[in-house]
């Protein structure tokens, strides 16, 4: 389960970064970039809190 969540998080991060590179090279327009980045936000926050540890100093 943790592995699946990590893969979803990774897809979220890829959708945050890669569309911007595609805009830079003129492959997609900014509105598509914004939409893909929004999907990236949803994927990241739907998965990362369930596998990322809390590196608190008091723990």
């Amino acid at each position: 389960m943790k592995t699946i969540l990590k893969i979803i998080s990774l897809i979220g991060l890829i959708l945050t970064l890669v569309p911007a590179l595609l805009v830079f090279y003129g492959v997609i327009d900014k509105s598509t970039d914004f939409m893909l980045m929004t999907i990236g936000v949803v994927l990241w926050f739907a998965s990362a809190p369930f596998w990322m540890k809390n590196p608190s100093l008091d723990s």
Partner: protein
Amino acid sequence: MSTTQHPPANASLVERLDALYEYDREPVAENKLHGWKTFIAMFSGEHVAGTEFVLGPLMVLHGVSAFDFFVGLLIGNTLAVLSWALLCAPVAVKVRLTIYWQLRKICGPYLTVIYSAFYAVILCLLAGSMVSVAVTAISIPFDIPNPNYIAGDVIPTVPWMFLALVVGIVIAALAVLGFDKIAHFSKICAPWMVLVFFAAGIAVLADLGTNGFTDFSRVATEKIFTGIPIGNNSKYTIWHIIGFSWLCNATQHIGMADLTIFRYAKSWKQGFASAFGMFLGHYMAWIASGILCAAFLAEGLTNPQPGNIALFGAGAAGLISVVIAGWTTANPTLYRAGLAIQVATPNWKRWKVTFLAGVFMIITACIPAVNAYLDRIIGYYGLFFMPLGAFIFVDVWLFPKLGLISDYAEKAKLLISWPATLAWFGSLFIMIFFYGKDNYEWLSNWLGEQPSWLAAIQTDLMFLIAPEWFLSVLMYTGFSMIQQKSEASKIALS
């Protein structure tokens, strides 16, 4: 997270402050130490914050050139990392105490109370700045214009202030509940937020006419970091950038506030983990937000507020990142402010104190000048707190070599250390004088025509922090020699 103990109602100010920090009075135990991962996560999370959306654009508005910006940030951030690794972390792993207890041993309880009170004020200001950053994004879907300080907006519109009030109340309510979960949430946001900054910067480069990465230096020089200030802003040089990037966290590294964090480090070398915060947050994110600001202005748009430029570069994801960046950093800041204020109140409950700090935070958030002059505020803040870090450094390392007694105030049972008081306020006022003689009208008028040697010294706030370190060290060491010589018998008795 602290578990606050409640002293009796008639307890003195010092007793209340001690009770507040009682839980971490002892040095950190061996089994509580942390490795590199914790510090890397912590620095990466804390230094990619809402204020990064303010500081990058400020540099663009101050007309910094591309070379000055990139090289200045590289040098300044390297100096900041070295300050953490070579000054702060070695002291922290040697004493393994919080800044509060270390200061108390050296300066006595009275100065520690003053430190806490001023620290609370500055934390409220910073939390207000972060709320303001978050509101610049939340206001956009409601079609509420963000205040434009450059255009003369001294206060925001009533609907904007209402939003700040709502956001402030939510943040204060969450701070009352504690910030552990929010601190964890901010760490979860860190990797994503770093990429949002980076992606937004890259996406808008095309708008600036870049043909590829090889073309970047031309566009950076001609269109982003042009070297020409915008509006009435002063011109920033490479020295401003080095000074600002090195010293914007002066209170934390050379000011030693991060003793509280690094006392948990296994080795002083973990001070180098700060490089992750500096080079992701204060290098990459400042460059990205600077690019965003330049592209925003190049489109003919005005008022490059964090929310506006993030929407321009990353759409809804950008807006969400600004809200989260502002919120997750405002929350622990307000919590710490509440903790510091608690000492000065007559045993008020935590929620009351945090809401009091929250009121101050909301007022600050409604003053656009705070973000417009954030670099100045950070400069004053560094100048004010830095000497105390210098005292800790010399007290731990230099005093034993000079044959002086470390932790003198504690050993001599002094309520206040006069060498620390004189050296702190003496070095501060001397530095403020050198800045103020050309920048405060009343002081310039009072001085009249300055002697040539004085007139030749023209300096900025940021350039004064390093000289202040040396001056405060000299003053504190000299005064301590006088004190310990004259009171030698007292110590011998004790």
